């Protein structure tokens, strides 16, 4: 069946998406065994790890054997930056993407032509279950760049036969103009930016009810149910959000269907999932909440075995009312580490700490405040000045402030507010200081 035929039916690949659990499991095991062999043969890191654990690819006879493999954490990607985990020569890689890391160095992933195709396939299946059809006109409000969200959705939407409007992030009034002039039907955005577009539109007298827009595809940050229903009500559209992470592929790991609105179908033909106890690493029974561990099943460029997402969720394999039998995960709202997501970009407090440590005139005491009073996530870094950094000139103080903000933006890839505060005004506590206050309502 070709893509046009698939796109024309209500479920992209019913042969797999509606298969019995046994058939799905059987397919996954077969792919997993191939994937373990691929990683073992091509990547030193996995060969050493498996050798150290006394496991050979041939030992993997069932899922229980697979779950004995060591987990892979983000540190593996960071320690092997940029190309150390690549399984193919670079001339077979046709694209790379990157996401921010904890130490200023990003993590880099590479895609072979087949990887890009598989990714496109996942996106097509995901957007189709979200109600997108060929002929939709899709406006991109994600940034393109190294972030996987922009290009990932872009090629999937094109693949399904949508007209892409590659507007990219920012310039809200221009987005509104494009929705109106180009007859946009699908908006791809972070939920907080969609809300911002909605509000700016309302202020400018934009009539959402009359607008051609009918679908919102959200990603890049967790989407609280309240925010989603608010946007649906005010923009007169249907919104779904999807889940993914750069390390395993990008967006398209899982996504909502129009039947079960609080859960996301995992693309089980491309990913094997496990839920573990984040403390002990033990695999938890179905339905228990724990940390999601993912293994991409066909990834050639950068295979990952048992990748720890640090995202907390639970998974069910109960068939869905939409007809699909693929497993569904609950929306991820919390992470097992301290990562912040600011307007879709991952930010770690440790990155901020590292930047401030290099700023002359800033004390070691800082505090982070996150809010969404303006409709968008706003990260404010409050920093205490050292006496020598204070001058009588506003211009000099302002340039110091802007300089720190620029440095932070350079590392974090997201703009932040910097606020200068009096020495001693940041509370000191014994032991682990609470650096962060998250006042976001959505």
């Amino acid at each position, binding site marked *: 069946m070709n893509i046009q035929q698939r796109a024309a039916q209500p479920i992209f690949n019913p042969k797999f998406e509606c298969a019995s659990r046994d058939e799905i499991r059987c397919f996954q095991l077969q792919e997993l065994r191939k994937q373990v062999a691929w990683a073992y043969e091509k990547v030193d890191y996995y060969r050493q790890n498996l050798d150290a654990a006394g496991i050979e690819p041939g030992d993997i006879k069932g899922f229980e054997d697979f779950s004995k493999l060591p987990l892979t954490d983000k540190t593996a990607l960071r320690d092997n930056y940029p190309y150390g985990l690549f399984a193919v020569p670079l001339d077979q890689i046709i694209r790379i993407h990157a996401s921010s890391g904890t130490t200023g160095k990003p993590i880099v992933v590479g895609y072979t032509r087949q990887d890009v195709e598989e990714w496109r396939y996942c996106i097509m299946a995901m957007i189709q279950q979200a109600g997108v059809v060929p002929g939709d006109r899709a406006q991109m409000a994600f940034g393109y760049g190294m972030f996987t969200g922009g290009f990932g959705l872009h090629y999937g939407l094109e693949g399904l036969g949508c007209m892409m409007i590659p507007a990219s992030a920012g310039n809200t009034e221009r987005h509104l103009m494009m929705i109106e002039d180009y007859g946009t039907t699908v908006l791809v955005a972070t939920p907080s930016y969609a809300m911002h577009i909605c509000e700016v539109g309302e202020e400018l007298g934009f009539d959402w009810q009359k607008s051609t827009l009918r679908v919102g595809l959200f990603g890049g940050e967790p989407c609280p149910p309240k925010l989603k229903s608010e946007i649906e009500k005010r923009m007169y559209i249907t919104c779904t959000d999807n889940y993914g992470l750069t390390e395993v592929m990008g967006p398209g790991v899982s996504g909502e269907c129009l039947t079960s609105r609080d859960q996301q179908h995992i693309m089980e033909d491309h990913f094997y999932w496990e839920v573990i106890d984040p403390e002990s690493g033990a695999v938890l029974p179905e339905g228990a909440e724990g940390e999601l561990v993912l293994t991409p099943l066909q990834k050639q460029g950068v295979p990952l075995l048992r990748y720890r997402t640090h995202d907390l969720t639970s998974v069910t394999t109960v068939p869905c009312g939409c007809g699909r039998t693929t497993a569904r995960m609950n929306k991820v709202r919390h992470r097992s580490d301290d990562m912040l997501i600011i307007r879709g970009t991952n930010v770690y407090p440790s990155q901020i700490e590292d930047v401030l440590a290099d700023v002359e005139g800033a004390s070691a005491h800082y505090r982070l405040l996150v809010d969404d009073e303006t409709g968008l996530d706003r990260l404010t870094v409050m920093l205490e*000045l050292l006496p020598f950094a*204070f001058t*009588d*000139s506003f211009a000099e103080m302002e340039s110091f402030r802007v300089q720190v903000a620029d440095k932070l933006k350079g590392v974090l890839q997201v703009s932040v507010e910097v606020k*200068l*505060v*009096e020495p001693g*005004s940041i509370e000191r506590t014994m032991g682990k200081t609470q650096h962060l206050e998250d006042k976001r309502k959505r």
Partner: protein
Amino acid sequence: MSVSQLSVFAENQPGRLSRLTALLEREAISIRGFAVADTGDFGIVRLIVDEPKKAQSCLQAAGFLVQANDLLCLELPDAPGFLNLVVSAMADAEISVEYGYSLVSTYVVFKVLDVAFAEQQLLKQDIRIINQSDLV
């Protein structure tokens, strides 16, 4: 000549200013003039006091960020035209004023790059130049 100004960093929050003035009151320091300016997030409180050195050390001991600067200080007769006379004379001498404010009596201060040069230029005018000891 010239007078000493203390600039104090203050966050834009209720109570910050009173914490500072209460401290000066306790030390029996007399404020002869002040100006408060802010950028929205933080402000700079500028003070002319009778005992700048004592004020600076007690403010710093209390944790304030303080910087001392020398300012041009003049006594202007309380009659029309004298402010114009002074600023015109400074303009003629190409002295630029960063900011200025008035103190007790009819004293005014100006933040200029080179106080001594400005004073020298103003000697030609019939204007009394004030120094720190005049403020006690």
